[in-house]
């Protein structure tokens, strides 16, 4: 049974890699693909954990992740991209290189924060926690450095993935958290979808610059 | 009992003399000035004649004056009169000795000044108001300087009353100290301002623009003007008595001993004469200064007062 840690670790690494390379992507479709891969890996990780811990609910988690995040969400987002014909480069607020350096820094912080603290904690969760924390932080970073609404949504979703990864790592975590994550993503997509429509009604694009225009007028 | 009667007599005598001699003193000063300027000058009794003339004139009241018009002369006169009763002249230990607190004195003079200023504003025409404004300006500095000078008196004599201070100085164990010299110089400046003499004001001036004290009385005539004039004479008297009593207390009589009275009287008259001469000498030797130089003049007096206080402190530290 010594295969558990390496595999879990490996999949965590893949997820982190996806999150990290999202920073480097300029095109929406590529980001969506990366997100899809991340979600797939996540569901695999969930299944594996469920198998390792023998916890049934983790299978369900993996299933939800697979269906919603790995299949439905990307399809929906691709449709939006198609509909608004936005297969063009995403303008970022800071140069890619700089954002990647920042990403590395964030991973460093995550490790710095988590490793010393969990010395006493369960060993299985040690790196898992560090990885998921860095995925969360990277997702936030994507949200902050990208201008594009879809890109921000993707960053947000990848943050959720980090959360789920952490949740799957928790031994025997009751189901309530899982359910709520799924709920959140569902609602999030719904609300986002509503917004995308409305925003399109008002400004002809998904770009938040329009919104920032209103904001600048100040009140 | 006898002592009380004697003190009463002395007080009455003092008051009578002060009130009687005040015009004469003014006459003396003007006469001396005239002589020093090489003129014959008016006779000594001219002030008395002026007062009598005013008695026999009808009193004209400007139609723009309010009902308070007659009040101010009385207020002014009574305040100065009370001051004259408080400041001892030829002898110490009068009945009014305990009342003669320096600050009460300052208050009475301020009261008289206030009444005069209001009289100037009464009829509501230009010159009176302008003069009152100047008077207010002078008084600000004069009062401050006078209060500052007080410190050295009171701290030396350990008594706040004129009588007490004079008594303490009369004992003579203070001697001539630097601080008293400063104080004398300062108080002379204050006195000149308060009595409206050259260099701050010209009692015999006739240009309304330049007058201060007289200009406030322009609208007054007859018996009211008499009161103001008499008050002015008394004021001169009061200040001379004050300076004489505080700085040259030697030879002052004691109310208790009748025998010491004649000497005291003689010396007092002598002192008044000397001060009159000094005043007239000073007046012919200086010119009237511009209105806005006066604050500087009095500011110097104030500084002298502070210095006298400081030197007194130093002396007392050196002394013991």
């Amino acid at each position, binding site marked *: 049974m010594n295969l558990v840690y390496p595999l879990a670790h490996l999949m965590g690494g893949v997820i982190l890699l996806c999150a990290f390379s999202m920073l480097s992507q300029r095109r929406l479709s590529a980001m969506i693909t990366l997100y899809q891969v991340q979600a797939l890996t996540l569901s695999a990780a969930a299944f594996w954990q469920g198998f390792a811990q023998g916890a049934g609910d983790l299978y369900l988690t993996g299933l939800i992740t697979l269906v919603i995040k790995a299949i439905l969400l990307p399809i929906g987002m691709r449709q939006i991209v198609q509909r608004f014909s936005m297969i063009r480069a995403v303008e970022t607020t800071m140069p890619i290189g700089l954002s990647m350096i920042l990403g590395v820094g964030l991973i460093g912080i995550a490790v710095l924060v988590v490793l010393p603290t969990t010395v006493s904690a369960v060993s299985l969760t040690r790196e898992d926690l560090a990885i998921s924390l860095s995925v969360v932080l990277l997702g936030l970073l994507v949200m902050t450095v990208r201008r594009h609404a879809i890109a921000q949504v993707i960053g947000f979703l990848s943050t959720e993935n980090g959360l789920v990864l952490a949740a799957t790592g928790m031994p025997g975590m009751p189901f309530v958290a899982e359910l709520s994550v799924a709920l959140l993503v569902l609602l999030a997509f719904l609300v986002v979808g509503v917004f995308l429509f409305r925003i399109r009604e008002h400004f002809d694009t998904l770009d938040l610059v329009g919104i920032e225009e209103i904001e600048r007028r100040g009140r | 009992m006898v002592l009380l009667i004697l003190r009463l007599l002395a007080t009455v005598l003092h008051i009578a003399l002060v009130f009687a001699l005040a015009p004469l003193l003014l006459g003396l000063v003007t006469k001396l000035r005239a002589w020093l300027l090489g003129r014959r000058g008016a006779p000594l009794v001219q002030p008395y004649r002026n007062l009598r003339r005013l008695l026999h004139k009808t009193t004209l*009241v400007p139609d723009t004056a309010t*009902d308070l018009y007659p009040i101010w002369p009385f207020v002014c006169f009574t305040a100065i009169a009370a001051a004259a009763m408080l400041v001892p002249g030829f002898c110490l230990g009068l009945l009014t000795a305990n009342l003669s607190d320096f600050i009460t004195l300052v208050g009475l003079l301020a009261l008289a000044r206030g009444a005069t200023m209001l009289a100037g504003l009464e009829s509501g025409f230009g010159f009176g108001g302008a003069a009152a404004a100047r008077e207010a300006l002078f008084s600000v500095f004069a009062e401050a300087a006078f209060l500052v000078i007080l410190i050295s008196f009171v701290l030396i004599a350990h008594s706040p009353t004129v009588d007490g201070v004079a008594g303490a100085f009369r004992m003579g164990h203070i001697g001539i100290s630097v601080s008293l010299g400063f104080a004398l110089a300062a108080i002379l400046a204050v006195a000149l301002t308060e009595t409206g003499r050259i260099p701050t004001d010209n009692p015999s001036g006739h240009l309304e623009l330049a007058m201060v004290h007289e200009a406030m009385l322009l609208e007054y005539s007859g018996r009211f003007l008499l009161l103001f004039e008499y008050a002015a004479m008394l004021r001169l008297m009061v200040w001379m008595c004050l300076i004489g009593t505080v700085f040259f207390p030697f030879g002052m009589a004691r109310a208790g001993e009748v025998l010491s009275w004649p000497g005291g009287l003689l010396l007092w008259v002598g002192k008044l004469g000397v001060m009159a001469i000094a005043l007239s000498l000073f007046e012919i030797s200086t010119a009237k200064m511009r209105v806005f130089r006066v604050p500087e003049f009095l500011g110097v007096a104030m500084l002298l007062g502070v210095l006298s206080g400081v030197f007194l402190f130093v002396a007392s530290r050196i002394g013991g």
Partner: protein
Amino acid sequence: MHLRLDALSVLFLCILVPQIFASALAERRGSFTFWVFVAGMVLALLAGDAFTLIFGFELMSAASWLLVLRGDAKPATLYAGIAMFSAACLIPAVFLPASSLAFVLVLLGAGAKAGLAPLHSWLPRAHPAPPAGVSALMSGGMVKVSLYILIRYGFIEFDAAAQPWWGSVLIVVGAASVLIGALRAMLEVEMKTMLACSTVEHVGLIAVGLGIALRAKAMGDFGLASLALQGALLCAVAHGLFKPMLFLGAGAVKKATGTTSLDWLGGLMRGMPRLGMLMLVGAAGMAALPLGPGFAPEFLLLHAVIMAAATGGILARIGFTALLAGLGLSAALALGAVVRLIGIGFLGRPRSLHAAAAEDAKRGTLAGMGLLAVLCLPVALLPGMVLELLEPVIQLLVPNSDPAPLSYAPLSLGVLLALAAGVAALGLRRFAVRGTREVPAWTGGFGRPPVWLPFGDPVTQPSATGFAEPIRRAIGRGLLAPKGADPAEAFLFFPLSRLNLRLTRLAEHIRRSTIRQRLAFVFGALVMFLLALGLGEGG
């Protein structure tokens, strides 16, 4: 929330009650806010514990703020700011143990509310704003409540930790207020503003007295302490009587003529003689003239200063000598201000038709002022007796002290004056020509006034501004900031407001940030916290 009554509170209640009656007689009987204001003051005076004290004090501030607001919205904000500043200083202070820090906080809090320099500049703006009855109560009562707090904490609560320098600080700020207050009272044109400035002066006088007492007490010189306290408390009593009177009078003038600007008044003595006489009484107190209510306190304070000059080192000597000079200066300035108030406002010729057509005040106002005037008599003529009544308070503040009897005897002085007046009157009646003849006054060479000005051309008589001009040139240049502004405003309030503006702009900049920038705030803060955590624990 419980109450207590000791000599000090009784004294200040006695100061407060007549004013309340007077202003209630004069006006504002109906206003609910007014009574809340009164209740706040009384509560603060009766307070038995810190919470009640602060509660009453703040209630007073709040109600008076509302009253100021109803009068004039502009100064209300400044007033509210000062009130809250004083609250922010007092609330901590009443909880700290007796210490210098606590005293400084109390001084800041109570001093700001009482109008001690340099935090006085709100007072001439705020006090004139509300109707006269409220102005009277604010000037005569509210200020006293603040001083009450200062006294209670300075002399009783913090007695254990008292230091001589506390007193010195109080003296310095007091002297500054006296000078600035008196000077501005001489220069202001608005009657109520001028009265407010003179309130600053009197508060300064009281503070000087308290400071001397505090210093002397800390140095163990109880005689001097009690003398200075006599002066300060008597000054509080007298000021509480004549200042509300003057404010009520100013209100009546406003009602009668529609303005309180001296440059538009004049000759009111004809239209409103009774008011004029009452104003004279109050003015005599304000100018500290002998036989007036204001003279005895001034007398005691000056003596206290002279006595204090003999204590301490060379610095104290120079300082107190200078202080004496300052007091003399301001006393004369107060006299000038009073002469200006009466002479320009009530004597002379009217400067506007309103002033010419003024009619005497309502009975209520006159009754209120009359009440205060009657109460002035004992303070003016029997100060010794009043001091006897103050004895327990002084014993409470300065234990085992034996104040010397007052060496100023108004009654005998009055006898002398009466004697002189009587003799003069008799002499004139006996010898002088009787009767008077009314003639046109000499116009000073000006042309005949136009016919529509029955009382002559106003421009041919001195205006209030012109009357103050020599003083402005001689002293104002030295003591005031450029362009005649109050130094406290020029050097304290304006820079602060500029700083406030700058920070506000910064906040606006933050508020304008875009969504992404806001996310960046959150993210950056999180990262910083985590970094701190990591370095704190792991590193």
